[in-house]
């Protein structure tokens, strides 16, 4: 009798648990080179969430140029979370889409950027053009591969890193910085729409002498192709790239996925989330994990966008909006 009672209790408990369990699907709309990061992270989060709540969560991924992805969300792509390349693109979800509050960046630590990255050079084995720093890539005869800043977040970081270097070198002479960046884009034979496309151009199509790349993208390319194909060159100065994340409030409220979406982003800051980021060559913000992976990342003199450009809004308006400096130099 006792066995029967115990058996029934187990059965009822199991039924009760199963009855309460739900299946949830989220859409993470991200920028180009985060495919591998979120493949790993989604699996880890699903396991964590299942253990915590009993719910099964499936996270779908969408990748493309950051600016393009932001426009897609504003135009109706129902992203539960957006993990884009730069804050300006996320701002568009607030300004143009009215999908998130204006102060979205204050909702999570480190201005809602759970990991950072920077811009480095990827060159062919043996570095045949002897590229060491920014000055080398504006020399005549050097072909530079970088995506289009109009559509790609990574490309805007590339541009701003080059501009910051030129400013420092010329003691903040804007005209010289403009001349420097103009020369850089004269050396760019083709502009892809996103960072992954630019990597394809450089690596698979064999075009160009140097790829201006996200640090994580450069590491990944080196890992996949092998050190006998490409080398990473670290410039003397680069920029801290802070890819931010946010829940898309109007969508999560509509889908009733706010709790799981917020947990999904919070877990990026956890020990496990940070470790996965580091393993995918993103610089972790959690000190314990950053220390552990310290040797993996080269030491670079890094500037911040707020310090040099006055933040993303100012940088966007001056350089990348229609009629901005990029249009002036690339139209030449």
């Amino acid at each position, binding site marked *: 009798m006792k066995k029967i009672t115990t058996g029934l209790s187990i059965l009822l408990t199991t039924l009760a648990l199963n009855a309460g369990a739900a299946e949830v699907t989220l859409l993470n709309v991200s920028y180009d080179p985060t495919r591998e990061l979120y493949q790993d992270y989604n699996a880890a989060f699903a396991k964590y969430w299942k253990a915590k709540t009993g719910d099964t969560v499936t996270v779908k991924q969408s990748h493309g140029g950051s600016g393009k992805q932001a426009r897609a969300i504003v135009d109706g792509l129902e992203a539960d979370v957006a993990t884009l390349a730069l804050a300006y693109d996320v701002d568009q979800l607030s300004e143009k889409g009215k999908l998130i509050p204006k102060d979205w960046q204050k909702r999570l630590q480190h201005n809602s950027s759970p990991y950072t990255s920077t811009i480095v050079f990827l060159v062919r084995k043996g570095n045949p053009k002897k590229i060491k720093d920014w000055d080398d890539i504006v020399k005549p005869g050097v*072909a530079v591969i970088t995506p289009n800043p109009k559509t790609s977040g990574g490309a805007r970081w590339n541009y701003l890193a080059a501009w910051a270097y030129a400013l420092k070198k010329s003691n903040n002479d804007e005209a010289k910085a403009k001349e420097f960046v103009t020369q850089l884009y004269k050396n760019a*034979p*083709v502009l*892809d*729409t996103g960072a992954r*496309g630019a990597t394809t*151009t450089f690596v698979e*199509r*064999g*075009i*160009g002498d140097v790829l201006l790349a996200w640090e994580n993208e450069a590491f990944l390319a080196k890992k996949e192709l092998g050190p006998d194909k490409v080398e990473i060159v670290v410039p003397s100065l680069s920029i801290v790239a802070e890819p931010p994340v946010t829940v898309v409030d109007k969508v999560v409220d509509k889908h009733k996925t706010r709790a799981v979406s917020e947990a999904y982003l919070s877990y990026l800051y956890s020990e496990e989330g940070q470790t996965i980021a580091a393993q995918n060559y993103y610089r972790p913000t959690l000190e314990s994990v950053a220390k552990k992976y310290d040797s993996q990342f080269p030491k670079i003199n890094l500037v911040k966008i707020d310090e040099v450009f006055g933040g993303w809004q100012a940088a966007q308006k001056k350089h990348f909006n229609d009629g901005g400096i990029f249009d002036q130099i690339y139209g030449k």
Partner: protein
Amino acid sequence: MKFKTKHIITLLVSAGVFAASGSALANDSDELEKLRALVQELDQKVRVLDRKNELAEEAAATKKKETPIVNASEKGFGFKSADGAFEIKLKGLIQADYRYFNQGFGGTGINTTNTPAADGFLLRRIRPTIEGTVFDKYDFRFTPEFGENKTTSNSGIVDAYVDARFTPWFQIRAGKFKPYVGLERLQSGADIKFVERSYVTNALLPNRDVGASIHGDVLDGKLTYALGVFNGVADGGDATTSADSNQDKDYAARIFTTPFKDDANVLSGLGFGIATTYGDVKGTAASTNLTSGYKTDGQQNFFQYAGTTIADGKRLRFAPQAYYYYGPFGVIAEYARVSQEINTAANAGHKTVDHDAWQIAGSYLITGEDASFKGVKPKNAFDLDNGGWGAWELVARYSELNLDEDTFKNAANTAFATTYASRITSATSASSWTAGVNWYLNPEVKLALDYEQTSFEAGGGGTATNPIDRKDERAVLGRFQIAF
């Protein structure tokens, strides 16, 4: 492009090799280096051109996904957004008819002239239609009428409605439209098998009404339902778009099932259901709220209430209905009964009259196309150059309308009289045989030729107690139609 690239590079490398050989002979390593650099430079230029082409193709493919789609084909005319959420369709229906009467009563309204109705051409339906969708779920349709019906409907608007498809099982339609009642009525005017619909449809059941319906499909589309509330129209009536002249509303309900629609067997084309309408209708001498008359296939009135007879209470209709399609064969069967309370404007006496009608119609596509409730798509369009003959269909129908004898009696129903309707001028029943052939030149163009013969009881003169039967109507009805 890659083929060209390889050839250019091969040529250049070969040139380099030959040049290098020459240079080696001359010990001129500088020359060799220059040629190698040149080859590399050209190789890069070709690769860049290749990649630019590739990116241009990707951009074009992306743009295509966002570019509105314009359609001008046998599927119709229109345009829609790339995701299909917004769409406009331009449709049209033109029916040019010819009616030839060999025998029958002619003239307008109820008449006793013993001469056939006038032969002649007429434009039965001229209906341009704008149909569309906004935000994926909200459809609309607007159809004005410029044909014969314009004069009978008191309104140039045939359809004007909005349909919200919230889910397949819960949709709302509001405006002026066909109430979900009669089966043959719900078949498009372009798809009907005969030049004119049967008595069930044209005489007793509502044509179009102004109101709102909740409707939808359940059980994987095997059961459709509809519930509606309308201003209410008289038998065979087409509502005007103006305000309701009668404060009470009509209610309509219908269920229809196609239980085997997903099966691949002999019953997959079977559908059946039942519909009903109910209303409480009061008429006045100025607006009787009764039918203006029942008509033959040749559109000749053979029954009309007396001018002083008015609707005076409940009107209940019910209509069981079915169709069956199997290969080229099709059949549609429908019955309708209307129970109507009437009186005279001077209150001669209140009574209830029950009229009923039924039809059974068969069709057979001799060119082998599949028959269906919707139109016919010929296997081969008519084409003199390439030898196509379109689709040919034979059709036949029997249809009957029987009026309640009490309609023609006095208030106490004790003797025949002309108080409510006259047997001298109005027939008490009509029975019609119709046979015809339809030639579908292509999915949009159709030629139809019907012969119909209608026999009547009473309505051909005499007296109220001893009426004479009206002469049979024999008519040939022809139609040339384009519907897109």
